[in-house]
């Protein structure tokens, strides 16, 4: 009975928090609320028996989205909201939200509530997929094509983000030899590497895999960046480019190889499927970590120029 209460309470406060994020006037408050909402949605995924997604939400939500949005606070100007216009829109917004929720809610609830989905088909072919965990099997074997294109999407996104943010305007942060954050970086890095390696390995027979491990490594990279232990990875260095390309290239290689022995694209031979998937997953982890890490642009210390003193 309390499980139903827990679900109802969680399902109620997610849209409530979402509405709070968009209602508050000042940007800094909505960013903090957004971080809290990411956390609660990780709990919602856990309650919906989706540990893989809860893991990705945790790794990406707390590792990257929070830091990225905090960074946006340093360059956006808190534009004074025209409260009058906002007050005029408020009733219309509430009416629109209610109508939309009602219509879509009725549509979703009218779906058949006993549809078993594809669970049986996935489990039927799990033995040939080379991994025991169904989600990893779907990600890298049944729908490998989807994941391959998704890695290309990530690559294009990071190329776009870096092209728009040219190095000439990116000032390198002065090295702040702050003992506290230095110590934090020194303690966190081994733990992050260990957990990332564990997650790549466990992805084969349990929730885990390249995406979660890559997001965790990127979180460590962001801490290294913020504690000025490492500079921003420069797109011009060949090491960074090879790190970006290992994942996609290896995946394309593994996808195209079966064509030469008369089989279709992405149709791994059953005997080697497990090892092929593991190697591809390792390469994907490196690429995803580098992609997500490079999203974090070179920063200007927020207060340094305005007040002329080191803010760390």
């Amino acid at each position: 009975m309390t499980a139903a209460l827990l679900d109802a309470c969680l399902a109620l406060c997610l849209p409530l928090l979402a509405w709070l994020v968009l209602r508050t006037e000042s940007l800094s408050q909505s960013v903090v609320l957004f971080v809290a909402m990411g956390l609660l949605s990780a709990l919602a995924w856990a309650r919906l028996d989706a540990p893989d997604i809860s893991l990705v939400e945790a790794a990406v939500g707390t590792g990257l989205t929070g830091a990225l949005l905090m960074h946006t606070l340093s360059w956006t100007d808190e534009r004074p909201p025209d409260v009058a216009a906002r007050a005029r829109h408020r009733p219309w917004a509430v009416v629109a939200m209610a109508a939309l929720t009602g219509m879509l809610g009725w549509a979703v609830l009218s779906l058949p509530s006993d549809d078993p989905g594809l669970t049986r088909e996935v489990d039927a072919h799990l033995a040939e997929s080379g991994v025991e965990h169904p989600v990893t099997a779907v990600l890298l074997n049944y729908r490998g094509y989807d994941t391959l294109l998704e890695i290309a999407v990530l690559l294009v996104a990071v190329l776009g983000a870096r092209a728009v943010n040219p190095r000439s305007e990116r000032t390198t942060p002065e090295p702040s030899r702050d003992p506290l954050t230095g110590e934090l970086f020194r303690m966190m890095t081994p733990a992050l590497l260990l957990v990332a390696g564990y997650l790549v390995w466990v992805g084969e027979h349990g929730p885990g895999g390249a995406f979660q491990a890559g997001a965790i490594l990127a979180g460590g990279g962001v801490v290294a960046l913020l504690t000025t232990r490492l500079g921003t990875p420069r797109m011009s260095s060949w090491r960074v480019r090879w790190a970006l390309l290992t994942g996609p290239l290896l995946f394309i290689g593994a996808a195209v190889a079966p064509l030469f022995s008369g089989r279709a694209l992405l149709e791994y031979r059953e005997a080697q499927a497990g090892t092929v998937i593991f190697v591809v997953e390792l390469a994907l982890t490196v690429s995803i970590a580098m992609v997500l890490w490079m999203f974090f642009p070179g920063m200007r210390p927020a207060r340094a120029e305005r007040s002329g003193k080191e803010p760390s």
Partner: protein
Amino acid sequence: MNPWAVYALSGVAMFSVGLVGLFSHEHPVKRILASNIAGSGVLLVLVALARREPTGAPDPVPHALVLTGIVVSVSATALGVALARRIARIDATAKAESTGASDPEAGGGSA
């Protein structure tokens, strides 16, 4: 009201809050947050539908889709933020030029 329906409705509500929020805010970062909320609302509906079978394991295919969906929405957010930052910098330089330059025609200088 079985559990999947509760979460599906919650996802629908998040989607409508995000969509309406997208249109009622001018600040670029606020709109990026709104589109993020709408996106995670849709993902919540997808995973709730995957859990319709009360017994046994949930349907892994939507789980794989949502997993990649979350990573792609983060990269979309990061790209959106980079673009918004670039626009803010162009506006700032354009405003500086127009206030700096006394003659009017220099106002629209290319960034």
